[in-house]
């Protein structure tokens, strides 16, 4: 976490001259150095860094060069949109990905499995933005049943604005979330399938068969439980990746989320937004890793029991 904070700090500090970006060409040198002093840019680096960290924990990232508004304000405005999009997509990707993966892993040969696999491979080859464009063209332009951009009507709940409470909001989230989840879903299908196939070859499955345990129990009790362990890690990484890919989806669907904000920031070299976004992402990743570790502890007895033995 600190590493990422440092990277984004150096980004903030060394990439280009922030003063140059903030003021116009005609500003005099004196004015510049005054501004420099007032921003504390003349302090030693470690003091600047600690100030950056302190501010970051308070959610202060300075002022956007481009939009001339506090970054924290911009972010909190955009945050709900992105989180709703990512959560819905993660749900779609994980649930359907795991189900289809298990199905194809168990029924290795069969028309449906082959079809799912072929489609999943196609899914890996389809860039998210192409899917988005195709969806827009099909559902918005040709069929005209779903909106092609925006969040629809949102309801404000204090700090949070949600699109789930209105019909137009729900309609608006269908296309972006399906688009976003498709790539991840196909990835999860392939992973779960490979995992299931490997487990079904192991000795303990063979031994369970030799004891006369029913195929149903072998598949869903013995194999699936073992197969789901790596899926937890994947789910963690998956959410992180979804946040990143939401940049693309948000651009295609003009979804007013953080990714959209970020891509504009990159185009205009708006460093404060970029570094704030980075810190936010890093925070999310650290949280996810933490949750994944905890889940592992509960699910995998090989980790749990060992740590008990050490502590006891």
């Amino acid at each position, binding site marked *: 976490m600190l590493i990422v904070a440092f990277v984004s700090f150096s980004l903030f500090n060394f990439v280009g001259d922030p003063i140059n970006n903030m003021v116009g060409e005609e500003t005099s040198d004196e004015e510049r150095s005054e501004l420099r002093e007032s921003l504390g840019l003349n302090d030693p680096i470690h003091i600047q860094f600690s100030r950056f960290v302190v501010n970051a924990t308070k959610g202060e990232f300075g002022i956007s060069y481009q939009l001339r508004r506090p970054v924290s304000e911009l972010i909190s405005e955009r945050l709900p949109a992105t989180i709703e999009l990512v959560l819905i997509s993660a749900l779609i990707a994980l649930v359907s990905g795991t189900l289809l993966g298990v199905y194809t892993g168990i029924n290795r040969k069969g028309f449906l499995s082959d079809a799912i696999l072929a489609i999943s491979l196609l899914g*890996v080859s389809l860039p998210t933005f192409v899917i988005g464009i195709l969806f827009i063209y099909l559902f918005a332009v040709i069929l005209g049943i779903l909106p092609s951009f925006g969040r629809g009507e949102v309801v404000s709940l204090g700090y949070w604005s949600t699109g789930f409470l209105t019909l137009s909001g729900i309609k608006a989230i269908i296309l972006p979330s399906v688009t976003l989840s498709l790539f991840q879903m196909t990835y999860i299908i392939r992973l779960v399938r490979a995992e299931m196939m490997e487990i079904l070859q192991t000795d303990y499955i063979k031994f369970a068969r030799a004891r006369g345990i029913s195929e149903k129990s072998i598949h869903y009790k013995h194999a699936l439980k073992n197969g789901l362990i790596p899926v937890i890690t994947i789910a963690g990484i998956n959410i992180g990746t979804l946040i990143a890919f939401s940049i693309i989806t948000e651009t295609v669907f003009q979804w007013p989320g953080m990714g959209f904000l970020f891509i504009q920031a*990159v185009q205009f070299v708006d460093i404060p937004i970029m570094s704030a976004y980075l810190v936010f992402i890093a925070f999310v990743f650290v949280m996810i890793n933490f949750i994944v570790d905890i889940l592992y502890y509960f699910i995998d007895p090989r980790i749990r029991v060992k740590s008990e033995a050490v502590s006891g």
Partner: protein
Amino acid sequence: MDNKNLTLLNRIKDSDIYFSFIKSPTAILSTIILIIIFFCSFFVEFVTPYNPFDPSSLSLMDAFTPPSWTEEGLAKFILGTDGQGRDMLATILYGARISLIVGFSAVIFALVLGVGLGLSAGYFGGRYEMIVMRLTDVQLTVPSILMALLVDGIARGIISRELHDEMAIYVLIFAIGISEWPQFARVSRAATLVEKNKDYVSASTIIGVSNIIIMFKHILPNIMRPVLVIGTIGLALAIIAEATLSFLGVGVPPTTPSLGTLIRLGNDFLFSGEWWITFFPAIFLVILAFSINLLGDWMRDTLNPKLN
């Protein structure tokens, strides 16, 4: 010499890989498609009479011609033209060349960097290995597209705007390459750890062979299989990543459009009915990536006997 080639050919023919190749119609089909695409893109000057980047040959009169099989289509523009009267097919092939160059360079960059670090980390172990692996862990949690965006953003900050357009392609290669190397590092380290513990490495050490020679002569050839699989899949990913970045407007500039740039430019015409301007580059991109993935998938199944 003849004799040697013959035995090599026989060895290939005799190998399980060859057998599995001729038994797999998807592998053959995707290889054929890829060969055609590679050929047409790299020798595009000879394949199509049009040069979309020569303004004198363009005529705005030809702009927005639909594909040849539609009512208003012209036979000379098979896939129609774009807003500046450029032939779509030619533009796509020129664009594919850029995409392929960026994809290949990025993968090779990532491969050299990743395998180099992964191999040495796995072989030497200790603190060095820990640092390298921690680095890959950190980077793996940052999704590749984000990484590439960041690199590009930083590059924009450092390099002036005029220079940036010129440098864009190198920045892009670097950005995609840097986002993909951890995969190679991980795979090659894991494979190196397995190989390192095999007795043939111990035997070489006991004989007195130096570490460098053991690494490159003995271990490297033995870890190439998984690396090649990752490389193939990585190529598809790199091409998609390039297209995505260009689509987002942070990739190659419109003066030398890649497939992604073409899709972005065409996207604006989607609502006004000129669907072909964005559709054909998109389909082309999907076919390209799909063929590479099919090949990669087949390679993974063939080269990884564990799953069979």
